[in-house]
């Protein structure tokens, strides 16, 4: 190889590498679930400022939102997410096992099972609670119209479903059979299934459909903040579920795009007091004890079950939401 050929080959390599280097400097894609739009808009601005101060680099974070399960499938199908911030661990498990885009032990890489905030499921009803809905049992009364998204596509919907199941099972004489019968009746009262939680909020709030919305706590608070307390109100059920929306770096994507450092810091920074404050302001329950104590008054105290009560997400997913699972058995669209 003569010197010219060496020079040309080097220039060609440089030219090929240039866009990769360029990509490393500027963009991250955060693929998230439906109701986190406002949270991450605020957090992204804060993180960009933090990263600029720390490294001098400009970083722009793009957001993608949708039903958590649907978002996971999109990432598996090739959407180049640097980070995923989804509604439940089972969806990131799917990216790890089906897409092989990150290791299966991803949840142990960040504190608190990689969940920098938690939330729970509450009821949102029309102002004055005209149908007198107080607890899960009221949702299966004749004539009650319940709004919840589709558990096949929405993480929030799966939390709703499991909370309902847990309540039914804890009733006197409760069993898997009575719980199954309960959720069958519950979904008979669901007139329309959206693909994500934000879609269900639209159905309930903007389209005026239904008597009660099974909602993320943060989504319920946000609805009241945006609509005003004279339109809707929150009903706290006797029992709900601790939902731990997890976050993870998508290793294969950050490796390819050269964004591992900034993507990792983007998630680590979620645990900082500054980010935890933003989390609380957006009605998610912060992990940081100091910030949680400061905002304790805004979150009702509820008896909570956890996903561990269902044997973990893998088991719950297989039993309830996989093809042929309980949900497929109890729900038939009209």
């Amino acid at each position, binding site marked *: 190889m*003569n010197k010219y*050929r060496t020079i*040309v080959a080097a*220039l*060609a390599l440089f*030219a090929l590498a240039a866009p990769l280097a360029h990509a490393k400097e500027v963009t991250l894609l955060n693929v998230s679930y439906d109701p986190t739009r406002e949270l991450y808009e605020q957090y992204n601005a804060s993180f960009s400022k933090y990263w600029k101060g720390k490294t001098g680099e400009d970083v722009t974070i793009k957001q993608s939102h949708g039903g958590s399960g649907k978002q996971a499938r999109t990432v598996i199908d090739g959407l180049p997410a640097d980070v995923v911030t989804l509604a439940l661990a089972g969806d990131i498990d799917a990216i790890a096992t089906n897409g092989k885009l990150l290791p299966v032990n991803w949840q142990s890489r960040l504190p608190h099972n990689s969940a920098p905030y938690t939330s729970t499921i509450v009821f949102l009803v029309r102002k004055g609670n005209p149908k007198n809905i107080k607890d899960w049992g009221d949702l299966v009364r004749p004539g009650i119209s319940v709004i919840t998204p589709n558990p096949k596509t929405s993480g929030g919907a799966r939390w709703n479903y499991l909370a309902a199941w847990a309540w039914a099972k804890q009733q006197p004489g409760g069993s898997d059979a009575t719980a199954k019968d309960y959720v069958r009746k519950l979904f008979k009262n669901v007139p*329309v299934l959206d693909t994500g939680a934000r*879609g269900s909020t639209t159905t309930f709030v903007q*389209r005026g459909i239904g008597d009660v919305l099974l909602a993320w706590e943060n989504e319920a608070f946000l609805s009241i903040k945006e609509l005003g307390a004279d339109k809707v109100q929150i009903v706290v059920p006797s029992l709900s579920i601790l939902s731990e929306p997890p976050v993870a770096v998508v290793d294969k994507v950050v490796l390819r795009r050269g964004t591992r450092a900034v993507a990792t810091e983007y998630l680590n920074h979620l645990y900082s007091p500054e980010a935890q404050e933003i989390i609380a302001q957006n009605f998610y329950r912060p992990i940081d004890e100091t910030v949680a104590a400061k905002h304790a008054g805004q979150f009702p105290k509820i008896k909570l079950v956890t996903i561990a009560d269902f044997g973990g997400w893998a088991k719950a997913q297989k039993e309830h939401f996989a093809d042929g699972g309980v949900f497929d058995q109890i729900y038939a669209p009209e």
Partner: protein
Amino acid sequence: MRIATAVSATLLLASAGAAAADDLSDLRERLEAQEQKIRVLERKLELQDEATKATVSSTPVVRASPQQGFRIQSADSQNVLRLRGVLQFDGRYFPDDITPATQDTWLLRRVRPILEGTLNGIYDFRFTPDFAQGKTVVQDAYIAARFKPWATLTAGKFKVPVGLERLQSATDIRFIERAFPTSLVPNRDLGVTFGGDISGGVVNYAVGYFNGVSDGGSSDGNTPTPDAENDTKGDWAARVFFQPFLNSDNFALRGLGFGVGGTYVDSTGSITTTLLPSYRTPGQQSFFSYRGATVAVGATPGPDRVFADGERVRWSPQAYYSIGSFGVLGEYVNVSQDVTRETPTAGVRSATLDNTAWQVQLAWFATGEDESFRGFTPGSVFSLDAGTWGALEFVARYQELDIDDDAFAGGSNSFANPDTAASKASAWGVGINWYFNQNYKWSINYDVTSFEGGAAAGADRPDEKALFTRIGLQF
């Protein structure tokens, strides 16, 4: 009694009022229930619509069109796969006294399925095998990364950016065979270029580095190893082309383009790898080659074979212009080649030979279509039922190729044999192209070529008269 009657009446009225209120309440509930049902139906339709849009936005698109061939592309157009093809069936007839009768023939000139596409919206690729003339050759195999319009990196085997008519697609050239200037510029070669368009194509530039090929040649013709470097010296190539009025409203000047291209190498040939070309007539018959160019299969080349030994510089000013249905294309090529020969009686001789070629060609659509350097759309398609005839184009050209006189100096010690190699060829030609539609074309060309030298005792080689025809299919 009156009191009782009044009380009864009051009770009746109250009862009737209560019943009316109940009815009203019932009606209101039923109305609300109906409203809910309507809202639910509307919402379901809305969700269906959203789902349909989402599906459409991610569904790949399959297209088949006369111009672009067959195409599969992702919904966002970032990933495209196209299947195209070129099939050209030629007839060659020589109504002269010089060309052997065996050259009258039918032949498949080009049989090229073309697989090309784009990945991630940036990375173009093309693979073009050619199965014509009883052999298989990879004509194009390259990747082009379009980082910016002005910054495209192309690597692989493709046309070297020098000659104007050479860079015109085989389906767009106006004559069946390209003219003499194309014989002096490289065809396809293996290498890397960096270039692109500036100001929306007003300026196009390319700078590249290639293995290097002899005049008019492709790297698949390299010896001893096709599609590989054979002299350790690569060729630099560069071209800049201007279309200053490309994006202007000036109709009269919009079709003007001009530029210059060239190559440079300091090559080291040998008697086994001469790196020297021979030149062909418009009838594709060889009329010039250096001494010792022809070696019998299995024979050892003679020690007095001429070979490239030093710098080879090509440069080519070029231009085209089109206005309405009229177009003109012109180019000039000079190749300055250092050669060496160990002569029989004068020792080792070296010289720098300057060979030149030029052409001017005219084209005119009698059916009124607009002339263009790249492609065009017939105003009508051939249809007996509709009584339409497609597009008819008349073409004419004049061309010359002049060999440096020093190539013939020195008698038996010369670099070229004047008894077999002509020192100059001049040709005029006319032709008709009948475009039945965008995909099907019939052409006929008639070229007459006169020579200086090339025959025994200083005589001129007789004129060549070539009548070529072509049936071509492209998609």
